[in-house]
């Protein structure tokens, strides 16, 4: 059993490497196909008519943009091997410095949103399954799909307007890390976590409901239902384990995308997170920063994927031998 497990772990780990490489190549090429470069974005932004072309060419040289593509790629790869992620082309500061604070915010937001999603999805899904095809079921499904259907920025705008007009209150404008001041921190992040979590709970609720339905159909549950003991059995370990697992899978898979994908939410709630950084980096053609961000999100996604795969394999030995 152990040997099969280790072999499986190794096999999955090894598969991560070519995927990461593929991501690196894709984003590298994609960025260089996009018209415009960082020097142009920086100097032409306000008119730039007194700026000379020679200056701009010198800047390009400094940033290494005049080198052939394969050389730029290998320089970048070599840097990663040394765990040196390079400097941002826009500010010239180390990328780790640029990402640090934004990563802390986005990570916390992703965790909080996932928690909200889980806390909503599981009970609602169970409820909808137990009361299938009744008005309770319909109400739950309408509620969760409504969350999915509303544009996130619309919801965000409405939330902020409500807070302003009704409560005359605004969340903190600046991010305070949790360990510095937990109240300020939560006061800022609670609302976007709620909005985002509500949206993501929809998928989880649907999954929980169908998983629960499957569990409910099993014969022993049916008999127990007839005997009136169904509540206890449903909530038994076996039933819960089988039902909750797919929900947790879905939510954890979405987690990685919550890191860099909350572009519009961050803009509406004015959060200094990775999503905004992403959009700015692409707009400024900051190749090194964009590449680093993409690799960060991809790595997180693949690691979470990996963890989920391992968890599944550990729980269901049959998978290991496929």
């Amino acid at each position, binding site marked *: 059993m152990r040997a099969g497990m280790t072999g499986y772990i190794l096999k999955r780990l090894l598969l991560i490497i070519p995927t990461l490489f593929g991501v690196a190549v894709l984003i590298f090429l994609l960025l260089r196909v996009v018209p415009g470069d960082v020097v142009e974005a920086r100097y032409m932004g306000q008119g730039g008519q007194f700026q000379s072309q020679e200056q701009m060419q010198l800047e390009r040289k400094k940033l290494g943009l005049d080198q052939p593509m394969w050389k730029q790629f290998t320089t970048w790869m070599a840097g990663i091997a040394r765990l040196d992620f390079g400097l941002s082309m826009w500010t010239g500061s180390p990328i780790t410095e640029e990402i640090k604070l934004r990563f802390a915010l986005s990570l916390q937001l992703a965790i909080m949103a996932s928690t909200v999603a889980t806390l909503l999805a599981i009970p609602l899904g169970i409820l909808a399954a137990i009361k299938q095809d009744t008005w309770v079921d319909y109400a739950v499904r309408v509620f969760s799909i409504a969350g*999915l259907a509303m544009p996130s920025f619309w919801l965000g705008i409405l939330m902020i307007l409500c807070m302003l007009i009704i409560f005359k209150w605004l969340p903190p404008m600046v991010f305070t890390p949790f360990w510095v001041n937990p109240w300020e921190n939560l006061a800022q992040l609670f609302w976007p976590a709620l909005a985002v979590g509500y949206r993501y709970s929809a998928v989880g609720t649907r999954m929980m409901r169908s998983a629960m339905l499957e569990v409910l159909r099993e014969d022993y549950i049916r008999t127990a239902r007839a005997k009136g003991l169904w509540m206890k059995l449903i909530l038994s370990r076996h039933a819960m384990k089988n039902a909750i697992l797919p929900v947790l899978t879905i939510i954890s898979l979405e987690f990685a995308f919550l890191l860099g994908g909350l572009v519009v939410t961050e803009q509406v709630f004015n959060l200094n997170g990775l999503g905004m950084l992403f959009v700015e980096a692409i707009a400024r053609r900051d190749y090194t920063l964009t590449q680093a961000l993409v690799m960060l999100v991809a790595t997180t996604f693949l690691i979470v994927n990996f963890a989920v795969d391992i968890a599944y394999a550990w729980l269901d030995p049959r998978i290991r031998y496929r």
Partner: protein
Amino acid sequence: MAVTPQTVEDLAHAGRSRGGWWSVVADFIRRRPLGAIGAAIILVMVFLAATAELIAPYDPLATDYAAMLAAPNKTHWLGTDAYGRDVLSRMVYGSRTALMVGLGASLLGAVFGSMIGVASAYFGGRVDLVVQRVMDVFFAFPVIILALAVVAVLGTGAGNVILAIATPMIPRCARVVRASALSVREMPYVDAARAAGFVHSRIILRHMLPNVMAPILIMATAFLGEAILLEASLSFLGLGVTEPTAAWGLMLRGAAVEFAESAPWMAVFPGLAISLAVFGFNLFGDSLRDALDPRLRTQ
């Protein structure tokens, strides 16, 4: 009573049998009221999109600065926007843009995704492994970032937006279809077809594809909703469809946010339209999945 349809083939069969399509539809409405509501919403949207020229009272592009920012009244049922354009007309034409973008992206994503997924499952082995890795690579990008990158490469505008939205959809569809196709591949008739020496393409197209139609259909309806939302987000960021096109996402941008308090009709109605459309597609897709998924039979 009519046999409860379990697959698309069953549906088709039921349609052709006694009672015909109407009994299938009536049955659907009775048994799945939510799905029926969803379908109704979709039909209204399609109707509006098709008959926009007849229904819309004004030209969606016609500005009228004298009547700018007017509240809903007799001449402009849903009010006017910052340039004096009729909100109702823009909403009606907007459904056309939404459907075009949604359908276009969804179809593109579903078609290419399922082709890749089925082929990958069918050929298996190394082909499968490579294709999976490539799909994983695209999968690792957050949806909106990938769409953003494609827009950055191709530029804005309706056509490019369709491509930009379809791109992240393809690997997602491929993954789901592949899972389905894997189980189909083990079916006896596929083996038989192979033994009989049929060409790969024929087996894929005639034997495997029809049997994975159900998940593809469900995916496509879910994608439609996603696509409409994604277009709204991209337009909100200024990277989607361009002015002066009438598009719901575009209507939510800029002036709508600014005037959210004093002229809320500018933001409320397009937002509502988007929500309703996505809502409808999801409800319908949900019920479709319930109907076609054999594991959820309650009878």
